[in-house]
């Protein structure tokens, strides 16, 4: 995995979050407390601003620095979770270099594992994990089937979409919406939406890059 790609991805992610302001913002207003968009914007903007600082670093160090920076920038529930993701990914990339889809998928999976540990959450609790876990599984499976990057990305995007959609009819058992009981039904989870948006941004970058 190239640091330059990580940085392009971080720019794309920031742009995508900003482009989806109103949807992300209104989802967290509906069953949360309304700050998720501004948290994500603050975090992704800060990372985008680290471009020059990160460029000379090896990929794992860049990822780790991103994680640490997010930890002190986002706050809220999503801050420690996204931070854990990047720090978890960094560890694996340090070992496997991330030079092929399978290696990257393994790093991604480690990131998701870290989120699950930190948040003590799993699939079906109406959180970002409902996007991230299926995306991770799909990533690993498609990579194992030696699909090309464009194919992998298409599969991932589908997984992200259906993962996001799956949050609609769930009762939340983690995070702020857990207090709502049945009232959370019918609403998508804001963190899941952010993840879908970010997954799309990176996939589209990869697909474009392959063209």
């Amino acid at each position, binding site marked *: 995995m190239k640091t330059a790609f990580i940085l392009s991805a971080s720019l794309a992610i920031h742009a995508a979050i900003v482009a989806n302001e109103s949807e992300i913002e209104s989802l967290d*207003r509906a069953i949360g407390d*309304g700050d998720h968009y501004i948290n994500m914007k603050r975090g992704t903007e800060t990372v985008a601003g680290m471009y020059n600082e990160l460029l000379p670093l090896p990929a794992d160090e860049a990822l780790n620095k991103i994680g640490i920076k997010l930890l*002190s920038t986002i706050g809220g529930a999503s*801050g420690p979770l996204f931070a854990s993701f990047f720090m978890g990914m960094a560890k694996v990339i340090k070992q496997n270099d991330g030079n092929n889809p399978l290696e990257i998928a393994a790093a991604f999976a480690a990131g998701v594992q870290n989120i699950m540990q930190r*948040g003590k959450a799993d699939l079906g609790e109406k959180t970002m994990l409902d996007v991230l876990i299926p995306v991770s599984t799909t990533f690993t499976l498609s990579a194992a089937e030696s699909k090309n990057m464009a194919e992998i990305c298409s599969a991932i995007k589908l997984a992200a979409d259906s993962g996001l959609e799956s949050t609609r009819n769930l009762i939340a058992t983690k995070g702020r919406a857990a207090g709502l009981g049945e009232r959370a039904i019918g609403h998508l989870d804001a963190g899941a939406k952010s993840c879908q948006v970010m997954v799309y941004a990176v996939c589209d970058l990869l697909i474009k890059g392959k063209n």
Partner: protein
Amino acid sequence: MKKFINNVDNLLVESLSGFASAHSDLVTLHLEPTYLTRKNASKSTPKNKVAIISGGGSGHEPLHAGYIGFGMLDAACPGHVFTSPTPDQMLTAAEAVHADMGVLFIVKNYAGDVMNFEMAAEMLPFENATVLTSDDCAVINSTYTTGRRGVAGTMIIEKCVGSLAETGANLAACKALGDKVNQRTASIGVALTSCTVPAAGRPTFDIADTEIEMGVGIHGEPGRRRETMREADAIVNDCVDAILADFKARNIHLNSEALLLINGFGATPLMELYLIYNTAAKLFHNHGVKISRSLVGNYVTALDMAGTSITLCLLDDEIKQHWDSPVHTAALRWGM
């Protein structure tokens, strides 16, 4: 949205600067990372006490920075509006104020606060413990595994634990008192209007002129249910019932004195809060609870939300002693 702000990004620092300058006899503001300490708190002259540190998203003022000072907090870590502070804030604050007796974090039970404080605690190079506050009895269904939310009762816990720490009590004793007060406290909130997160620029929820949100959280999170607006006594009656039912469900007996806190969420006039106090005190009295301490005002707010929360804290001699002891902070002061 109409608010006295310049721009959303600077709101917090400008407001904290004003707070620190208005209370320069009491607190010092530190930036990058953001935290506030008692005036002249310094590692070179540590007072021999457990350092009591709290923090959480901003927008609940005077919580927590307003409770820094003798008899209460040593430091507070304010996050962005409704957003938990980050671990670096807690770490730096702890470094700044700890003596040799450890650090006690007082943390409202929200996923974000819990995780951020947890990471700080993991990284902290010295003894520490955490009191998780969870006084909100609005969330009925206990199958949700996240537990109850920490709301207005938090300030009572900060007061009592802060008082005990001042006596030189050790970390375990401070944590034990915090847990006990938390256990003996129940709150429920009701909103007449939504709050508006400055960065969002519009109300968190829509609510008709004929509706109230029963069991609302201090971030404008939806509560138990949307109900029809009724006269004050009927609303207060339901709140009191919820609190009584909560103690009952937790097998905590009510035959003791209690502190009744009628908390305004930010936009409810004192006149209404006292009317609520009047009704709530009578209803509790009818259930054999003797209200011997009271507090009425804006103590744990939700920005500009109109609404109130009712908190009952069952006193025993120890809690009463630490509630009554002298305190000198920006928002709570007596006996000195």
